[in-house]
């Protein structure tokens, strides 16, 4: 079995140089998510302008898959409308990674997605309060 087929080159690339890594000062929403089975954590920040995610950043501490998944997700949602992001389901996120994952590793891949969706729910909740 070759070492290379274990994880894809895309995953590797995102792990070595995660996109949008870091913090946003004064974000519109921020969240801290943890995977209790392995202790992976992600702090995620978004800025939302005119119904679009204009900036997204995160500080992830975790495995190859969770870091790469956060990186890929951040690229995919930046600039997108909230309504569009809301239509993304778990299958789409896993599909973007291009990996067959077992149930334990799916949690790693979905940590950033769960964080993002919670932030969007929180943001919408606040917007409704305002109107």
């Amino acid at each position, binding site marked *: *079995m070759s*070492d290379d*087929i*274990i994880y894809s080159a895309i995953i590797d690339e995102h792990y070595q140089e*995660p996109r949008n*890594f*870091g913090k946003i000062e004064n974000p519109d929403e921020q969240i801290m998510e943890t995977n209790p*089975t*392995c*202790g*992976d954590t992600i702090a995620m920040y978004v800025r939302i302008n005119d119904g679009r995610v204009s900036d997204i950043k995160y*500080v*992830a*501490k*975790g*495995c*190859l*898959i*969770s*870091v790469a998944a956060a990186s890929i997700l951040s690229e995919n949602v930046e600039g997108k409308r909230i309504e569009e992001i809301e239509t993304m389901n778990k299958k789409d996120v896993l599909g973007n990674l291009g990996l067959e994952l077992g149930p*334990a*590793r799916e949690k*790693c891949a979905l940590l950033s997605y769960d964080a993002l969706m919670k932030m969007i729910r929180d943001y919408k909740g606040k917007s409704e309060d305002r109107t």
Partner: protein
Amino acid sequence: MIDVEKIREDFPIYKRFLREGIIYLDNAATTQKPISVINAIVDYYENHNSNVHRGVYRVGEEATDLYNGSRENIANFIKAKPENIVFVRNATEGLNLAASGLVSLLNDGDEILLSRMEHHSNIVPWQIQSTRKNIRLKFIENGPDEQISWKLIEENLTEKTKVVSLTACSNILGTINDLSDVGRHLHNLGIFFVVDGAQSVPHMDVNVNRLQCDLMAFSGHKMLGPAGIGCLYGTEEILDRMPPYMGGGEMIKEVFEDHFTTADIPEKFEAGTPNIEGAIGMSAAVNYLKNIGMDNVREHEHDTISYIFKREDELNMKELVSYGPRNPDIKSAIFTFNIKKKGVNERPYGNEVHPHDISHMADRMEGVELRSGHHCAMPMTVSLGVYATARASFYIYNDHKDVDHLFNSIERIIRRMIVK
């Protein structure tokens, strides 16, 4: 010495393992089952199935005999009597029963002493029960390489300490604690002594008379038996004093509308129809281990961990960090480690290969099945300064080649993740 090749023939799953090149190294989590255990369970269902302690008909009496005989055999394995053995689901349930029972006998202001290397099952039940009364939990702040012995316990006792509950062998570090004198000393001080035997009973000769503990929990599935069965050993005195845990059939003598009287020990703690096939399977596992001899099991594991240390020293991989004592005399065949990128372009999110990745890659690269995570021992994991580790745990069917595969996989992961 143990003949590993011969032992593997007794384990049907090894046909698959050998065919697919699977090296199973998660024995601290659960062990594989020999054919004799599987057959004992099948035989019970095919020939003797019926409820126990009820029917006076032929099959019912056979089932009762098999169940009682299993209890006697397991008791004998740790040099106890059948009435000292309460059947539970696993060591966790045994420790929950111990905590519930003992806290009933404590008073406000009493203290319970645990250690930093405990499994969550020897921490959380005490946390839950301690809220019933104003009871304080204290921890021996042992270092990762430190063996717990009487001296260390004594330093942490206060006049209020009423329970000391410790693991005989750490599931994360493999440390075999020196509990030889502890029971005697604690009895002299009137302190209850509870032992978590989940990682000791399967791996070495355990004699409760020498240990002089009041209570000791262990699991069947970690010692070649089926899941869903375990034991809480207790002295007659302590089991008599502890109030019943769950109510229902089996645990009573008489029931009236306003009260009940309890059955004698151990049935007093066994409400409802028990796990009959589990007890029978666990007893068959005990027979298998007795046949090998527990001193031989321990010798084999001593040899395994010695070989692991030898290979680790020879290979001298600078990215490999392992944990726990280095002396094979006080270490079970558990090897816990991390792979760290030392000095290589440190990333913003940490400089170690995540144990989940280690476990995933070891499986795909070499068929090596490792555990990764905090191993239900978060306080110790935190004191190691990490959030997770990878763990290889060996048993009677593992040999030096398995150790070689482990180190091959570690080398390949380092090449893959660090030397790019």
